[in-house]
């Protein structure tokens, strides 16, 4: 099972160089303890958040990680950054294993990999000035002695993300959601990382603002060769920003492919259902579209079914699906899917 994702022949996105991947995730599983139940608490409850997930991310590439709530997409991102304990599997960054990196190591690594949060209201300390927020990573890593020393750098960063020069002296409440997200991006860029996990960075923003932030992220990528793990549930936004897309369902990656292949010729029944469920903002087109239904809801992560996790909703389910979980296998160049029947 190890190395299944490599069959996807990941291509480096922009520069076309098929060098070594920046981030390599192999058979990652994350299981959370959820307390005990039953008589005398004899039964241990475990949430199988992520199970046997494998993928690579190359320098300058955006991998879109799409899934519904509870599919494990955020947990995957956080596991890479060392923010949740990994149960099994390995994670490599620049060829070095970082799976069980200790506190010090995670701190050192955070110079190279950063996180942009979903909620721009909750992720900025309301009692800190913007300049302090953006300078904080520099301080933490001892690159500057105090905020004053960082002033020049912070001004550059604020300009880079399109905020006015006087923004630094103000507090988060003075900014709109879109502007706050720019602050969050500036903070993530302060240490000049190579890899950014963006966890639903535009989900909380309005349509007209969303495009501004997506464009900014693309510009920054082109300029600094950043690699993104772009976590989102909005398939239309992901289509715009990603080079490759992984579709997650109940802790598994069910399909991983170049972006045009996902949208033009999806293989996995869940991918098809997901794509057909997104309404297109054009009434005649929307009326003509056919929805591939998958009745029911995602399985309970505390008690996932054996075999394929999509079996309860899949129209093509067979006995094989109930017995054995499928793994990602190549379907055509640049496209892998985990399904027995497609």
């Amino acid at each position: 099972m190890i190395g299944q994702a490599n069959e996807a022949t990941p291509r480096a996105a922009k520069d076309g160089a098929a060098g070594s991947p920046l981030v390599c995730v192999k058979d990652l599983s994350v299981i959370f303890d959820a307390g005990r139940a039953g008589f005398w608490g004899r039964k241990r409850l475990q949430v199988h958040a992520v199970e046997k997930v494998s993928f690579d991310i190359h320098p300058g590439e955006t991998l879109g990680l799409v899934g519904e709530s509870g599919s494990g997409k955020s947990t995957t991102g956080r596991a890479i950054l060392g923010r949740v304990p990994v149960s099994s599997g390995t994670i490599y960054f620049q060829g070095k294993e970082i799976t069980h990196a200790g506190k010090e190591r995670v701190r050192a690594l955070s110079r190279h990999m950063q996180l942009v949060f979903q909620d721009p209201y909750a992720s900025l300390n309301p009692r800190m000035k913007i300049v302090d927020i953006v300078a904080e990573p520099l301080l933490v890593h001892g690159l500057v002695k105090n905020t004053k020393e960082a002033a020049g750098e912070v001004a550059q960063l604020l300009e880079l993300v399109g905020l006015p020069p006087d923004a630094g002296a103000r507090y988060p409440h003075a900014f709109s959601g879109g502007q706050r997200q720019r602050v969050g991006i500036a903070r993530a860029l302060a240490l000049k990382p190579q890899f950014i996990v963006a966890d639903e960075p535009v989900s909380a923003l309005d349509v007209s603002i969303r495009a501004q932030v997506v464009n900014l992220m693309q510009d920054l990528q082109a300029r600094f060769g950043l690699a993104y793990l772009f976590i989102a549930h909005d398939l239309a936004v992901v289509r715009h920003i990603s080079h490759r897309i992984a579709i997650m369902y109940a802790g598994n990656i069910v399909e991983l492919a170049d972006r045009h292949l996902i949208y033009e010729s999806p293989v996995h029944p869940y991918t098809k259902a997901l794509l057909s469920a997104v309404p297109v903002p054009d009434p005649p087109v929307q009326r003509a579209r056919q929805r591939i239904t998958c009745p029911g809801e995602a399985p309970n992560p505390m008690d996932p079914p054996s075999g394929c996790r999509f079996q309860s909703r899949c129209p093509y389910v067979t006995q094989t699906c109930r017995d054995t979980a499928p793994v990602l296998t190549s379907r055509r160049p640049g496209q892998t899917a985990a399904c027995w029947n497609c």
Partner: protein
Amino acid sequence: MNDCQNTPLLEVRNLVVNFYTRGGVVQASRGVSFQVAHGQTLGIVGESGSGKSVAVQAVMGLISNPGRIEGGDILFRGRSLLDPAGRKFVRKVRGKEIAMIFQDPMTSLNPVFTIGTQITEVLRHHLGMTRDQARKRAMDLLGLVDINAPEKRLKQYPYEMSGGMRQRVMIAMALACEPRLIIADEPTTALDVTIQAQILELLADLQQRLEVSVILITHDLGVVAQLCHRVAVMYAGRIVEVGDADQVFASPVHPYTKGLIRATPRLDVVTERMVSIDGVPPDLISPPQGCAFSPRCDQAKNDCLRSQTLTPLGDDRHVSCWCAIKGDTR
């Protein structure tokens, strides 16, 4: 607008709602007018803070301190819902003839009562049913919204159900008194796409079968495209464009509508760069003079500082834009 002979089911006229906050008076609704005909689905789209929820909360009588309705009128079947003399009529209508579905089904269902108790309460209060009658009807209603094993479900508490299931219960409760108008305020925003698709299909199916009118509040143009006959676009407390949904999507007239449609990424179209609308929506404590969109509009000129109203622009379309009215953008 299109039902000239018979009165529209609901008519909102020049509605003004202000919220008196410590920071100042927030002008959430600055003269909103719209109509809903019998059996029609009206979509109200707008970004957060555009006043779309406030407009329908006024219809349901849900504006409370520090908010105040300070102007305009709301007519249901030709009778005012704001007239103090018509209190009895209002009490009869709200909750019975006009029902509401809220965004978050977790917070709008009472966590300490079973689903059964909550549905039968509506039936017994509004329709004066007995316990047994109400229970039977509640089971029918759950069947109507495609919930399996209704008998078992009636005994469950909201926490035992998934988000999609809870939203189905909310819809069943809204349908309990056979309303003529259902107001759905972002009914699928908290749900996953595959569940959203199920709920939207259910709503469309019920709307046709029961011939109710629906007002759907959303920020998602895709949802409007899927469900609505007509669409009203709101910006900064005003409706800027209203008309037949197909036509508005095919040929938007107001620059904001155009921008919104262009900024919405589409699953079926690839573009290298997303189109954004520069700037941010205005602060409603001190909204800009004249057209509120003019600071972000690339066609803005001096005319735009004069206040304007929704003006008919041929076939059912009403637009509030000086440039469009003068035919500059058409």
